[in-house]
C-alpha cells in the first residue's frame, strides 16, 4: 500500500510502485492562488477555475478524459507542434496516430502515469504561467475506497498544491443549488432534503442530502452506468449485425443520440457506415434493452435510500429526486423511474432532470466548495 500523500505537513510521502514519481517543480514564492473545481470523469472531465478571492472564472472546460501518446515513426508536421502527448479532443481527432489511454475506469484511476499526464494538462490550462498555487476540489465516486482516494492524491502530487476529495453526488447537489435564492421565501435549498442520482460513464451514484454532509449510509455507488450500456449495446449490435466493425466510440455516439428507457420504441433507424457504405440499422429493441438495464440496477438502490429516510422527511424527499450526469439525457428516464415508484406505492414521487447544465454541476459544486473551504480544511500535497 502506498504512503498517504497528504494531510501531515511533516511527512514525506514515498510514491508507490504503481504511481510514477512526482516531478519536482521549482519552489516558488507565495504567489497567486488559483482555485479549481474538477469533475474527474470516466469519459469526460469538467474543470472550472478562477483566482482565489475573486468571482472570475478564468477556465470553464469539458475535456474527454483521454490521453494520446503519439506513435513512433509519425513524420514531422502530422501532429500540431510535433507534440508527443495529446489530450481530450486533440487525442481523439488524431486517433490514428496515437495510442489512446483512458486514465479512469469505473470512476477510479486505471492508468496512473496517464492520469498524472492528464493532471499536468489540467494544471497548464488553469495556470499557463506555471507559477500559481493550485488548490483543487476533486469529485470522486460516492463509495471511493481509501486506495482509490490515495491514488488520486499520489497522481496529483507535484501537480497541484492542495486538494480536497469530495463525493460527486454531493457536489452535484451543491452545483445545482441556486445560491442567489437560498434563504428566500419559497425557495428551499436542495441541500436540505433531496436525493441525487448522478449517472456518469463508469458509475451511477445515488446520494441523499438532508442538511448535513451525507454519511456512507446516505450514498450508494453502482458500477453500472453509461459505459456498461455501451457494452451491452455493442454486444447486441455484434449479435444482430456480425462483423459490423463499429468502434466503441461510435456505439457511444449512437447511444447518446437515441437511448431511451421504458416500453420498446420501434423503429429507430440509425445510419452507419460499414465497409465504406451507408447502411440503416434498426436498433429500437437493442437500445431499449441496453438502457432499461440501467433502470433495473438503479431502482433497488433508489428504494433502499428512500427506505432509510426518516418518516418526517420522506414525503418531501420523494418530491425532490433529481437525476444528473450524462445518464439524465436518456429519454424517458425521469418518467419511468417516477412511474415505477408510484406503481410500487410510494407517496406522490417526483423525479426531475437537473437540466441543460448536467455536465457541469459536479464541477460547479466543486468550485463552490473550493471557494468556501477554510484554510485548515485543505489537504496538503507534499513532494
Amino acid at each position, binding site marked *: 500500500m502506498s504512503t498517504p500523500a497528504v494531510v501531515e505537513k511533516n511527512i514525506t510521502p514515498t510514491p508507490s510502485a504503481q504511481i510514477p514519481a512526482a516531478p519536482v517543480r521549482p519552489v516558488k514564492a507565495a504567489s497567486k492562488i488559483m482555485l479549481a473545481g474538477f469533475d474527474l470523469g470516466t469519459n469526460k472531465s469538467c474543470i*472550472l477555475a478562477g483566482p482565489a478571492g475573486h468571482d472570475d472564472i478564468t477556465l470553464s472546460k469539458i475535456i474527454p478524459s483521454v490521453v494520446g501518446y503519439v506513435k513512433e515513426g509519425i513524420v514531422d508536421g502530422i501532429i500540431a507542434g510535433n507534440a508527443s502527448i495529446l489530450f481530450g479532443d486533440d487525442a481523439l481527432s488524431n486517433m490514428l496516430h496515437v495510442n489512446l489511454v483512458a486514465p479512469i475506469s469505473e470512476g477510479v484511476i486505471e492508468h496512473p502515469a496517464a492520469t498524472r499526464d492528464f493532471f499536468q494538462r489540467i494544471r497548464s490550462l488553469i495556470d499557463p504561467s506555471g507559477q500559481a498555487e493550485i488548490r483543487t476540489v476533486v469529485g470522486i465516486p460516492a463509495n471511493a475506497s481509501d486506495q482509490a482516494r490515495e491514488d488520486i492524491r499520489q497522481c496529483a502530487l507535484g501537480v497541484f498544491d492542495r486538494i*480536497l476529495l469530495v463525493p460527486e453526488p454531493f457536489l452535484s447537489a451543491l452545483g445545482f443549488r441556486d445560491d442567489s435564492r437560498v434563504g428566500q421565501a419559497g425557495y428551499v435549498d436542495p441541500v436540505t432534503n*433531496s436525493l441525487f442520482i448522478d449517472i456518469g460513464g463508469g458509475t451511477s451514484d445515488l446520494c441523499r442530502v438532508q442538511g448535513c454532509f451525507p454519511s456512507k449510509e446516505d450514498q450508494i455507488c453502482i458500477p453500472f452506468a453509461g459505459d456498461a450500456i455501451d457494452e451491452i449495446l455493442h454486444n447486441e449490435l455484434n449479435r444482430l449485425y456480425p462483423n459490423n466493425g463499429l468502434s466503441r466510440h461510435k456505439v457511444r455516439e449512437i447511444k447518446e443520440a437515441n437511448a431511451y428507457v421504458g416500453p420498446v420504441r420501434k423503429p429507430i433507424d440509425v445510419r452507419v457506415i460499414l465497409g465504406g457504405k451507408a447502411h440503416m440499422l434498426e436498433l429500437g429493441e437493442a437500445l431499449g434493452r441496453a438502457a432499461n438495464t440501467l433502470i433495473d440496477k438503479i431502482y433497488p438502490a433508489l428504494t433502499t435510500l428512500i427506505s432509510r429516510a426518516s418518516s418526517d422527511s420522506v414525503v418531501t424527499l420523494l418530491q425532490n429526486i433529481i437525476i444528473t450526469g450524462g445518464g439524465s439525457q436518456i429519454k424517458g428516464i425521469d418518467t419511468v423511474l417516477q412511474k415505477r415508484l408510484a406503481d410500487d406505492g410510494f407517496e406522490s414521487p417526483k423525479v426531475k432532470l437537473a437540466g441543460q*447544465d448536467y455536465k457541469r454541476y459536479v464541477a*460547479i459544486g466543486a468550485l463552490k466548495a473550493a471557494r468556501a473551504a477554510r484554510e485548515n480544511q485543505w489537504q496538503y500535497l507534499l513532494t
Partner: protein
Amino acid sequence: MSPVTAEEEFLLALTTVRATYGTASINETDLKDIVTIEESRVADAVVIAELIATRINAQQTQTGAQPSTFSQAQEDTSPPLPTPIPFPSSASTPPLSIADLIEGMLTQERRDVRKPS
C-alpha cells in the same frame, strides 16, 4: 395553442431555408458544429451567472439591500430548472454553510480512519 418552442422555431426556419435554397444549402456537419458551439456558450454563461450570483447576493445581504431585483431578473430569464419542494422545517433555519458541510465530511473521514478495520 401551445407557444412555439425555440427548437420548433429553429426547425421551421431550417425547413424554410431548405425549401427556398435547396436541401444542399445547409451542411449537416456545419449545423451540428454551430449547435455544439452555441450550447457550450449558453452553458458557460449559465455557469458564470450562477457563480457570480452568489457573491452579488452576499454583498446585497451585507449592505442590507433587497436581493429581489437580481433574483427576480434571474427567475425571469434563466432556463427552467426543477424547483425543489419546500421542506417544512427549513424556513426557520439559516442557510447551510458549505464550509460546515465540508467540516462534517472531514469529521466523518477522521472517524472512519480511527475505526479499527
